């Protein structure tokens, strides 16, 4: 293997030395080991939490909420976004309501949701749903609006009904931008599931991390964060895989354009 100045190996070396330095300053108590437990201890508690299934259980209850809110938002917003993109009158009618609700930072919806849904799953699902609305809705609408008119006219010339035209022409043509909306919302979903679990919950990975901090089980707190990072990475990769398969026809078209 040839080593270049810009090899990826550099990064791993840096990571390893950071971890080693962490271990050292913690063991020699240069930094308070209560706040910075030795790296080896964090990793040990990470693995024991993974193998005992505790982390998995927390992640599972988080993911259940995340999936429900996210899919609900997609199911509502993609059709609504298509309608708003096709019919300007519908967009105009909803514009003021949307522009009023959109600047609201999603965390402040948590207390309202707690009033209506209590501390259960419904509250988290609603909060996630609310915060995922905007990227999916607005990107879908934008995607539909930017469709080449020729495409729609062609569909009409060939006698496609409105419904079939939407399914066969408009949905595929707008799908790259719908995917962008879905991707932005995926990241937002993870943030909001953690927030809602921190503010009002008794399980889930967000609760687990904050609770570990409050009970000063600091190694568990870091272990929880590590698993959250891995989860985020995994979800992102899964999404990329899904959108690459789903949009492979689109990329093929882009290449032939060049």
């Amino acid at each position, binding site marked *: 293997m040839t080593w270049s100045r810009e090899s990826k190996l550099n990064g791993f070396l840096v990571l390893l030395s950071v971890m080693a330095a962490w271990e050292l300053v913690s063991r020699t108590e240069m930094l308070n080991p209560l706040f910075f437990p030795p790296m080896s201890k964090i990793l040990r508690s990470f693995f024991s939490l993974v193998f005992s299934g505790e982390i998995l259980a927390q992640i599972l209850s988080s993911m259940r909420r995340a999936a429900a809110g996210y899919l609900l938002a997609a199911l509502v917003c993609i059709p609504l976004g298509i309608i708003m993109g096709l019919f300007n009158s519908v967009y105009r009618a909803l514009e003021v309501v949307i522009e009023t609700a959109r600047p609201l930072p999603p965390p402040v919806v948590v207390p309202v949701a707690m009033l209506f849904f209590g501390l259960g799953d419904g509250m988290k699902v609603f909060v996630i749903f609310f915060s995922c609305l905007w990227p999916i809705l607005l990107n879908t609408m934008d995607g539909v609006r930017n469709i080449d008119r020729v495409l729609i006219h062609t569909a009409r010339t060939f006698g496609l009904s409105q419904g079939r035209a939407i399914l066969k022409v408009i949905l595929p043509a707008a799908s790259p931008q719908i995917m962008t909306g879905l991707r932005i919302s995926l990241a937002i979903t993870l943030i909001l599931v953690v927030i809602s679990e921190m503010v009002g919950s008794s399980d889930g990975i967000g609760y687990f991390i904050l609770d570990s*901090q409050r009970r000063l089980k600091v190694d568990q707190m870091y272990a929880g964060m590590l698993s959250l990072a891995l989860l985020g990475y995994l979800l992102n990769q899964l999404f990329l895989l899904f959108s690459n398969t789903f949009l492979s026809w689109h990329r093929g078209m882009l290449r032939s354009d060049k």
Partner: protein
Amino acid sequence: MSLSNHERGSEVKSSGRFNFSGLALFAALLLLWEFSSRFTPAIQPYFPPASRVIHSLFQPSLARELFGHLLDTLGRFLGGYFLAAAMAVSLGIILGYFRFAYSLLEVVIELLRPMPSVAIIPVAILLLGIGNSMMVAVTVYACAWPILINTIDGVRNIDRTLIDTGRTFGLGRWKILRRIALPAAAPYIVTGLRISLSIALILVTTSEMVVGGSGLGFFILDEERSLHTSNMYAGIVVVALLGYALNRLFIAVETKAMAWHRGLTARGML
């Protein structure tokens, strides 16, 4: 290596025309809220009439209290946002310009980036206590990511010819950076700054909810817990106005600062 998460999101332009149907629907919803609450007293504790929310918004004592919380939130927001911008833009330029520097930090960046940034709150509480510095630190951490990634992307996508031209004309490193690299990467940096604007508000309100004390996030959660719901809704109205105003301000500054750029793109020609 793929850094290309240059997510522009979508900006919906309103036509500026008087939107009758939009305002009518908005008014209809407000009326529906008002009357559904008035005629079903059972839900009033959760859902007070809109008029009562507006009324409490204009009560001098509450207005004063809200204004104090607003200032706290705004201060944390500004501190975190600008600190993040200064740090992330400079680091992003270095990492975008020098591939070696990027290769050093790549693995650490790829490891930390997918973690939802709010998860840093417990660590910040542990290290910094529950004061202002903790909330600002959390905001800096979260806001730095979009700005950093977009700045790196922007510097990398600079046309080589631009830099070579600068060199041909005998510009030094510093001049190339300031006169060529920074302006050329500016559209990307602005995108990062725009994404971070809403992230900053999310982090400030969340940390206020988690650690309490002061700020609009704390106020809203606290009023919910003591079942002063019309105050809670009043707080939410204020946060929404704050978000709206910050967004407007950003667009105004962006339009002014990036006018030269719009003139260069095809959009400006049509």
